[in-house]
């Protein structure tokens, strides 16, 4: 009996050693250790043996089974690693194929991106964001902003009217007026939004977007305006930018200035040996209008909000066109592209 067991072990181990696939091993496991195999039969028959033989035979048969199972498992493990490798190679896919399902691209409009970028600069400088109606009273759009009764901007050839005293706002300045009426100084606020003027040509659309800013506080000065706009210009157009102020005229500010930013496409007006097309060779690009709030503007709100006594408060205001900033910064050649909503345009800035 013991001989037979050791014989089985030898034969089985030889077969296991010769096996080349895990499937073969599985067959061997059934052949040598399965229900109908000899070794399990011996084990089952141990109880029928003579008591003196039971101990050694049972022990030997059990040892043999353990030994065989171990041999098969070891061999099986060695196959599993190799076969997994093989299977992984067979499972390879073309990793360069696009994702599935492929996400639709999406993006904010360039105007919104530019607006947010500018808003964030002024949020960082401590400004709030104020909004107001687009269908506005003449009183807020012109009267309170020191436009003379016959100011040409009031003319129906320049401004859209809804009624005698109601118009589509021509700037977001009326939001500043409305804000002052309900908020005493110190006031630091920007007013972004849609505005309307009766212009329709290569460089004007009847609807466009503005951000205007207002700071009213003790001792606010023209130098503060300069520093604030310098910080803005650097944030939007790059840290190397400088600005310059040119005197100008606006009804609601005095003194008034136009502000140029140093050109970011050239060196002193020259780009690749040619006159720079962006700044027309001047090295400066006009980006906005600004100035110190005209005392008449404060006077127009001081009746309801006496803290804006024109004798006591000072402030600056500025206004810029979002379209212009976006076009300059992103080299968009034609204003119409911003309102055409061609997906091929939109996805360039997504």
């Amino acid at each position, binding site marked *: 009996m013991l001989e037979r067991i050791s014989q089985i072990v030898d034969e089985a181990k030889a077969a296991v050693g010769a096996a080349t696939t895990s499937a073969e091993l599985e067959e061997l496991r059934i052949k040598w250790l399965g229900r109908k195999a000899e070794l399990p039969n011996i084990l089952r028959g141990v109880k029928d043996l003579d008591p003196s033989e039971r101990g050694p035979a049972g022990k030997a048969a059990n040892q043999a089974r353990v030994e065989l199972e171990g041999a098969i498992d070891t061999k099986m493990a060695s196959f599993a690693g190799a076969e997994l490798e093989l299977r992984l190679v067979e499972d390879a896919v073309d990793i360069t194929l696009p994702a599935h399902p492929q996400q*639709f691209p999406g993006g904010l409009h360039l105007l919104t991106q530019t607006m947010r970028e500018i808003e964030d600069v002024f949020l960082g400088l401590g400004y709030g964001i104020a909004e107001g109606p687009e269908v506005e009273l003449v009183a807020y759009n012109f009267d309170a902003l020191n436009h003379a009764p016959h100011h040409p901007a009031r003319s129906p050839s320049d401004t859209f009217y809804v009624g005698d005293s109601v118009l589509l706002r021509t700037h977001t300045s009326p939001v500043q007026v409305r804000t002052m009426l309900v908020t005493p100084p110190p006031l630091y606020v920007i007013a972004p939004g849609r505005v309307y003027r009766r212009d329709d040509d290569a460089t004007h659309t009847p609807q466009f977007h503005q951000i205007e800013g207002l700071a009213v506080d*003790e001792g606010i000065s023209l130098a503060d305006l300069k520093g604030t706009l310098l910080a803005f210009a650097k944030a939007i157009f790059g840290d190397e930018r400088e600005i310059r102020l040119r005197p100008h005229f606006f009804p609601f500010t005095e003194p008034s200035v136009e502000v140029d930013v140093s050109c970011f496409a050239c060196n002193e007006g020259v780009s690749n040996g040619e006159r720079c097309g962006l700044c027309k060779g001047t090295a400066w690009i006009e980006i906005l209008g600004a100035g110190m709030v005209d005392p008449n503007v404060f006077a127009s709100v001081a009746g309801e909000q006496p803290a804006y006594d024109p004798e006591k408060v*000072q402030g600056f205001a500025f206004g810029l066109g979002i379209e212009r900033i976006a076009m300059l910064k992103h080299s968009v050649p034609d204003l119409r592209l911003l309102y055409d909503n061609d*997906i091929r345009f939109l996805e360039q800035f997504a």
Partner: protein
Amino acid sequence: MKVPLSLLLEFCDPGLSAEEISSVLALSGTEVERVTRLGVEDSSNFVVGVVLTADQHPDADRLKVCSVDVGAPEPATIVCGAPNVDAGQTVAVALPGAVMPGGMTIKKAKLRGVESSGMICAEDELGLGKGHQGILVLPNTAGPAGRPLGEVLPLDETVLELEITPNRPDCLGVYGVARELHAATGAELKPAPWERDLGSGGDLDGIQVSVEDSDQCPIFTARIYEGLSAAVTPPAIAAHLTAAGMRPISPVVDITNYVMLVIGEPLHAFDLDKIEGGLTVRPAVAGETVATLDGEDRTLIEGETIIADVGGPTSIAGVMGGARSEVGWETTRVLLEAATWHGPSINRTSARLGLRSEASGRFEKGLAPVLASRGQAFASQLFEQIYGVTPVAGTVAIGAVGEATTVKLSHHKVNSLMGSQLTAERISAPLERLGFTVALDGDEFSVGVPLDRLDVTRDVDVIEEIARIDGLEKLEATIPTSGAGGGRLTRDQRIRRQVQDALVSAGCFEAAGWSFCAPGLSDRLRLAADDPRRNAITLVNPMSSEESILRTTLLGSLLDSAARNAARGASAIRLFETGPVYLPSEDGLSDEPQRFGAVLCGPATQPDWRNASPDDVDVHGAIGVIGGVLDSLHCQWKIVPATEPEPFLHPGRSGVIEIAGRPAGWVGDLHPLVSAEWGLDGGVAFEVDLDAVISASPEVLHYWAVSAHPMVGQDLAVVVDAGVSAAELIEIAEEVGSPELESVVVFDIYRGEQLGENAVSVGLRFVFRADDRTLTEEEASAVRQRILDALQDRKGAQSRG
């Protein structure tokens, strides 16, 4: 305004180039739009010629053979192709050797067999402008023949085109610009041209003038010049006028234009012998007519200011003179008017008549009355220079020049407003150079304002003068020190950004739409006659009827943009917009609720290598986009069938978006007729009220305990009548499944013959879980049974097992 540089330098020459002068002017507040060089490199060989004969070329229909006196012993034969050349004309001739602006040298040459010794020039050929209608015909006074052309035309000139801001009409004359240049550079300013007056005050015999409305005519002055005989405009004056864009016409007219060019005051000359009786400045009566200098008959409207004599209107005040009293070569007696007018009225009249002139452009700015007497004084010098006559004694002067004003200015305020530390000297120097007087008393300056600076009335106006002349580049760049601390978005603004971002995440591009739309949009959207969205705000003066109302829905411009993209071959179109719509409100203004909306067309997912032809996006795809937005903001929402479907949506494939239990928008497949109207293939759309989202989105999210115990998943398929909505089943399940039911979703919808025509099988997948213990399968099955019973009771649902 066009300023000939050589004329500017006559009054102030800082020794700078044209470019440097432009820069100085720009940085002190006078914008230079353009610097143009006129004329030719070398003006030798350009002469004045007189055409003696102009005959048809024997071999060329379009050419003429001219004999031209060029000051040489023999006339030159010149072949000319211009249609307007004629005998007797005084013309500009380029003789052989002349170098044209393009670099071509004129040579003797045979033209169709006739030798031509030079060229008769057109305006553009001399670098003087764009005119090429024919040759440039000079006034006969430009001669004599042979005179160097550079003496009568600006052949070597630089022109600065200035943009004068509306508050500075004092700079609408070259001398005013010279004063700016002087103030900015310190270079010497020559005495003002009006300082010498050859006329006298007192009563003027020979004309009666009355002014009925002094508001319309703050000042009216007139002088008389008699004994005028043939005379010639000095060539330098003619050249300067030409360079400034005004053609020399006759000495009298040239005098008026030259005074306007130099000091900014337009003058008008009447032939005194053609005035019947006296002159009255008065409002026109509606329907009165006047034949103006341009040969047109103009009909006036009530209240427009005219100058009339007994024969009726002779001139439209400040806008254009009348033909009846026009000066001509035969004129010997001139009445010279120098007045100022109410700017806005001039603006209205000139705009109405389409008569925009150098004069009206100045008057509409509201000129200072002092300019009238200055104009008369300078003109008197020119009459003497050209005609050798001085004015008849006396001057008509109706109206007042006005008092010189003084502005008090605190030293502290200057530095406080500018953010500077200017000394008293640095404050007064720029003012004095600009012609202000300055006296200092303690901390306070008394600043005397020049009579032509009507724009300066307050301390801040004076501070502007100091700031711009002292130099804004010298200002420090500081940031306000206190800071307001309000630097954050409001909740509304933050949520609006989140909505936009969520729509982007859902694969949509933001479009920039128009607030304007066409009234016809309502019909194209099939809105009912009583649909409130037809009630739009209407513009009084739209750009066009297509842009005459304000939008009451975002859908119109989204569809327009989608249609453009579709026409250009785009297959997947997913556009959204956030922004207001404009709804008329009772106070005459508008309610401007913010909305977000989208139009989606094309495949529901990107076609790819697994699925090259995905289904087109449908209403459920749109709901997915909306759900992504609303879920990201933790809003309670659901879609419910509409009792009255939107007319622009598929009635069976659309619904109402309810947020926090209230209707807040619509979603659906586009109605096939609407898709077709915009040339779209199918498509879905939605529009949602942003305020509903803002109020439904919780301000703060609070933690709720998650169960540590395992879930039990079970499915249930029920057959219900097709009219029962999935939402109804889910609502019942949620109600009776509580508290063990954690979630329920629809995982299958099936319709088939064996169910019967009007039935649908709905597969529900439940997740059951208990907070405090491990739920057993048996407990879960009991809850499932509870749900099934309720569905059977209330909706007649039958279990499919």
